[in-house]
């Protein structure tokens, strides 16, 4: 089975997200980077599926050259190949991103044969456009369903579960197919010693792809108004329990 998983490198902010003075980007001066969480689970799912059914996982990212770091991380948890579509680091709009990823997948399929399954995150952690996976799958003629929290493969059928308020919905697609997954579909493993070696040895493939801009242009990023609260300190340690229960009583939740 051949699986391609698309991941995005995103900053990992703490208590607040700061924006650069020109409002054009998240201020990453003091931040680390990570793989968008839904997609981290996407990589884990891809690896588990190939462990169960055989095959190989290719992880694909569009981003600055540093995004190779996220490909190496994927290799450290079991992905076989990593491919980077390099950008100058500026944020690409969703249509442009989807066009470039579509061409990248077409190129990879010409070289190595079709992917049975494309895995995307339900939405990227930073821009959260809720669309790149859908656009790529549509351009490639593959069925796609998002919000997926469970995948079973049976021959050429993908049975995918989507969480709802009451339980879940089941979808059935024939491969080649695509899914948008959500965190919680699995618990991603941590890299092992052997994984770390594999990640060092990973040869990151590079595909230079240009793609025309879409119709949405980013003007400015800004933070929503801060929540300011006059926090009432009820006390220290267990002695505060009585004051806490008074509050609960006042709220009528006792």
């Amino acid at each position, binding site marked *: 089975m051949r699986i391609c998983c698309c991941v995005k490198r995103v900053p990992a*902010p703490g208590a607040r*997200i700061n924006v650069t003075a020109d409002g054009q980007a998240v201020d990453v001066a003091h931040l680390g980077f990570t793989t968008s*969480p*839904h997609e981290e689970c996407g990589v884990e799912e891809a690896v588990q599926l190939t462990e169960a059914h055989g095959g190989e996982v290719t992880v694909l990212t569009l981003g600055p050259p540093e995004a190779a770091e996220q490909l190496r991380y994927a290799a450290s948890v079991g992905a076989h190949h990593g491919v980077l579509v390099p950008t100058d680091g500026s944020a690409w*709009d969703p*249509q442009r991103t989807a066009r470039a990823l579509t061409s990248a997948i077409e190129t990879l399929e010409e070289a190595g044969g079709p992917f049975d399954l494309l895995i995307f995150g339900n939405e990227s*952690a*930073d*821009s*959260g*456009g*809720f*669309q790149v996976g*859908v*656009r790529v*799958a*549509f*351009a490639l003629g593959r*069925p*796609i*369903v*998002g*919000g997926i929290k469970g995948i079973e493969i049976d021959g050429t059928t993908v049975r995918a579960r989507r969480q*709802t*308020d*009451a*339980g879940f*919905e*089941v*979808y059935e697609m024939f491969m080649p197919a695509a899914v948008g997954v*959500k*965190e*919680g579909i699995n*618990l991603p493993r941590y890299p092992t010693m052997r994984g770390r070696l594999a990640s060092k040895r990973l040869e990151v493939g590079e595909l230079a792809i240009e793609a025309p801009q879409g*119709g*949405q*242009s*980013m*003007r*400015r*990023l800004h*933070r*929503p108004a801060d929540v300011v*609260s006059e*926090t009432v*300190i*009820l006390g*220290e*340690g*267990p002695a*505060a*329990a*009585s*004051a*806490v*229960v008074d509050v*609960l009583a006042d*709220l*009528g*939740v006792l």
Partner: protein
Amino acid sequence: MLLVILEHDQGVMAEAAREALTFGRTLAGRMGVPMHAALIGSEEAALVAEAGAHGAGVVHTVVHPVLSDFGPEAWGEVIAVMVPRLAPAAVLAGGSDRGNEVMAQAAARLDAPFVANCLDVDPAGWSITRIQWGGSLLEDVTLSVDVPLLSCGLHAVAAEAAETPTEPAVEEFEADLDAALSRTVVRDRVVLSAGVTLSTAPVVVGGGRGVGSAEGFAPLEDLADLLGGKVGCSRAVTNNGWRPHSDQVGQTGTRIAPEIYIASGISGAIQHWVGAMGSKHILAINLDPEANIVQKADWAVIGDLHEVIPAISEEIRSRR
């Protein structure tokens, strides 16, 4: 006209659809156009009536064998077919997973931009403020397009009926849909839990890394039970395998809206906060008085949650 997509599940209207109609009413006013609604895969009179109560003047209904149940590709195709034929000035859906997904499908088919989770839309020049990072950051965008495809952020507005309800005209929309679109239609449903869920619980007792272990959650469970609530947790907890992901509060977990959220051993990272900020009140229990969650809470107890939480439960029991 502004066309609003009515999200429903087998004929039951979603709250996101009411929000979209409420948001759409204001937007249509700013655009100076009437609001219509699209009802895909249903002709339910109750849905039509509700669309009218929320201000839709016309409801376009589409029924077709491939629309027997929800299917993202089939719904997206319907919208893509409607755009050139009904010539709306813009299309709007609710910012739920389904709403965003069908708009993305429509946008892919029309090769047009789609702006998800809008908070504010100025139709003059289509300047839009939208949500990034699950609400921790905002982005201003402009659109160059004939027919903007939009969704409004989930709970960006509270659903509200129109001052003057209308009895909408129903117009049947004939769509010639490929049977192959049924490949992504819901095949089966499994109903799991009835009753209180994390997103509807009146009280949530949250635990973070400070809880220290899976077993460490027993006192939190006990307190949640006493208060008829649910246990929630941070991503640090789920990543450690101490709790299932279904308990996670935050950007990539559940958004909660309890009367009170008791957050213990949680620092209050922005991605956790966006899931918790819908709580009416917050009580933080933390060793660190400088913790972000303490700064944002209504009340705080500074101390070790392993001592404070059992003491609260004991106090509740002693008062009963």
